């Protein structure tokens, strides 16, 4: 009984909740990727709901649509859209990496655990996938900025 109480208390003390979820400091790039995937997902869900609401102004006629465009076709509105482009590109490319990983691809072969006990699954394939996601997101944001602020 006493042991059970102790183990329950240890489990409770180990619960970090949202702080544990948000803390990337003790982990590597995989944790940053985990965190970004969730952060961009939440951001895109909020944008999606806002976009569905925004487009519903069409039903109010041309004046309502133009009034809404006047709110969104600003420098701040364009910067927000560039962030959406970056978030959606990272979320998509990193999501594809995660689908492959979930299917067992890119994890490497199991091996004997030797000092310093680095996890074989957290290898260069995974890390390069995260970097490719970040680089493509940056490129997409640059293209988006060119379309929104440039002449295209």
């Amino acid at each position, binding site marked *: 009984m006493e042991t059970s109480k102790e183990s329950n208390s240890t489990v409770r003390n180990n619960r970090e*909740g949202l702080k544990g979820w948000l803390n990337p400091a003790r982990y590597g790039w995989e944790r940053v990727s985990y965190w970004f995937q969730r952060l961009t*997902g*939440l951001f*895109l*869900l909020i944008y999606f709901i806002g976009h*569905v609401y925004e487009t519903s102004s*069409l039903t109010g006629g041309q004046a309502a649509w133009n009034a809404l465009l006047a709110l969104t076709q600003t420098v701040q509105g364009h910067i927000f859209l560039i962030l959406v482009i970056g978030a959606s590109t990272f979320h998509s490319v990193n999501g594809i990496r995660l689908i492959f990983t979930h299917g067992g691809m890119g994890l490497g072969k199991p091996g004997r655990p030797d000092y310093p006990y680095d996890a074989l699954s957290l290898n260069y394939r995974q890390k390069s996938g995260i970097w490719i996601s970040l680089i493509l997101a940056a490129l997409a944001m640059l293209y988006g900025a060119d*379309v929104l602020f440039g002449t*295209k």
Partner: protein
Amino acid sequence: MIRESLIMRIHYITGISALFVVAVHITMRLLMPFDSSIEYQNIIANYHNIAYSILLESILVLIAIHGFNGLRIMLLELRQNRLWENGVTIFTISAMMTVVAYGTRTIILAQGLGA
């Protein structure tokens, strides 16, 4: 009860499918200068195109399923007990259905509008 492995498969399929339909949606905005493509007449003309309306509806359904299931997964990672898990599932399904219903209403009403 649907198994979590099946829900995860649905999550991946909706994510990949959304990627393709959103790519078409964005391409439609880039066929002409961006500012012109979002003018009222152009948008209404898009909604009058049945194929494009079906594409918009599929984007709405796919992203709503993927997005709200993603939110459900995140909320289930934070806390685990029967009350929380059932509450999160009911909340996300209700929110998903509300967004799909509201977006579908816009697609249907916009088809009746004159350019």
